[in-house]
């Protein structure tokens, strides 16, 4: 069990700035995110797209904003716990017990949800009942490539993940069956060329303009049915299936935590951005209140105000003093300045 002043759910820009606002008040924090890196939507969806409305930054990108925030919070040495999401939050007297999908357990007076539009989850093929195949022989990522050795592997998708794995697994698999919705690919040209060569040499069977129609099998997939643009179907025997249809965002377990929700957002007050539960806060795109704007800059403001209440809960015996970063020697110490 990890004891901490605050657990932040979501490593997007607002989650990262929350680390800063807590840090200058002398509070430590742990950040949990379902992606494999910090940055949230900024990094996963639009790393290269310009953002023009961050105060005092005439233009930045999702990636540069993330990097700058990571630089800004460095002095606080907070810990990140990536590739996992928070499954449960339970009350324990005045504290909260937070458990992740990797069974990390935290005890904290403050939980700050900076979850954007939810956690990123793999997008699944639109086929009913495929959950029964998941982790048997249907996968959305490759954890151990050797399990595909000697197999006939069907890969769905036309992006970098699909093509990289098609090329890589063709070295150990018996055959790769690559199925894509279009006849153009979104991957690096070099990889597309490699894949085309493997197709010519017979290592890869390529089906373009095709989509998955059905997966047949009782407990694991035995064959797949794909359909082309002319609605013609084809049955293919497979040993395993990899589907790379990108990521989507889902609110996930958050809906089970007893918080007041408004559609896909969490209702908060505008005094300290606390939810209906004491010590659980929501900031950034995931919170809602009258007049809410889904802007990064609004999230920064929300984080600053939530942090004040977090201080009172984490250090009930200490007097809260408002300080500016320009002049406070305490803050300078926390920032590692002399």
């Amino acid at each position, binding site marked *: 069990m990890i004891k901490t002043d605050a657990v932040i759910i979501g490593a997007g820009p607002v989650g990262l700035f929350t680390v800063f606002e807590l840090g200058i008040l002398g509070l430590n924090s742990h950040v949990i995110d379902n992606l494999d890196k910090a940055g949230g939507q900024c990094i996963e969806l639009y790393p290269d797209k310009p953002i023009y409305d961050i105060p005092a930054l005439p233009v930045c990108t999702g990636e540069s904003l993330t990097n700058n925030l990571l630089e800004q919070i460095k002095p606080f040495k907070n810990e990140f716990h990536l590739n996992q999401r928070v499954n449960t939050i339970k009350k324990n007297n005045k504290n909260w017990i937070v458990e992740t999908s990797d069974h990390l357990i935290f005890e904290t007076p403050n939980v700050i949800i900076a979850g954007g539009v939810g956690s990123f989850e793999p997008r699944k093929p639109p086929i009913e009942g495929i959950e029964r195949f998941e982790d048997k022989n249907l996968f959305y990522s490759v954890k151990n490539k050797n399990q595909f050795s000697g197999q006939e592997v069907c890969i769905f998708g036309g992006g970098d993940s699909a093509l990289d794995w098609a090329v890589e697994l063709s070295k150990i698999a018996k055959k790769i069956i690559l199925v894509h919705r279009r006849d153009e690919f979104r991957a690096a040209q070099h990889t597309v060329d490699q894949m085309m060569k493997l197709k010519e040499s017979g290592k890869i069977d390529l089906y373009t303009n095709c*989509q998955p129609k059905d997966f047949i099998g009782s407990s694991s997939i035995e064959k797949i049915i794909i359909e082309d643009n002319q609605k013609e179907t084809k049955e293919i025997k497979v040993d395993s299936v990899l589907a790379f249809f990108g990521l989507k965002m889902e609110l996930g377990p958050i809906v089970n935590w007893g918080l007041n929700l408004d559609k896909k957002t969490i209702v908060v007050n505008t005094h300290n951005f606390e939810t209906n539960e004491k010590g659980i806060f929501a900031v950034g795109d995931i919170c809602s209140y009258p007049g809410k704007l889904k802007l990064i800059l609004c999230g920064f403001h929300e984080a600053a105000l939530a942090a004040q209440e977090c201080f009172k809960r984490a250090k009930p015996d200490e007097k809260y003093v408002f300080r500016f970063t320009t002049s406070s020697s305490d803050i300078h110490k926390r920032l590692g300045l002399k």
Partner: protein
Amino acid sequence: MPKVTYIEFNGTEHVVNVEKGLTIMEGAVQNNVPGIDADCGGSCACATCHVYVDDDWVDKLPEQSDAEKDMLDFAFETKGTSRLGCQIFLDEELDGIAVSLPEKQG
């Protein structure tokens, strides 16, 4: 103002007047038409504003950008008439356009 008809998957029709210069996605979100999520807020980065454009209107739309084609790979049950609502800007030319919404987004 261009008039847009949104047809939900269950057949419910919503006819709304949308300000010129806004997108099909924005027209739906601002008028509370259910069935368009627009998770990324219109930056052509998520494929949750997927619509099927009425056959009569498909040819009147500007061509898909590469970015839109790439994102449509991730949409649920695409057809030949699939587009992303955030990439269709409304003007007088498109007055009267109709779009159907998929069973779900993503």
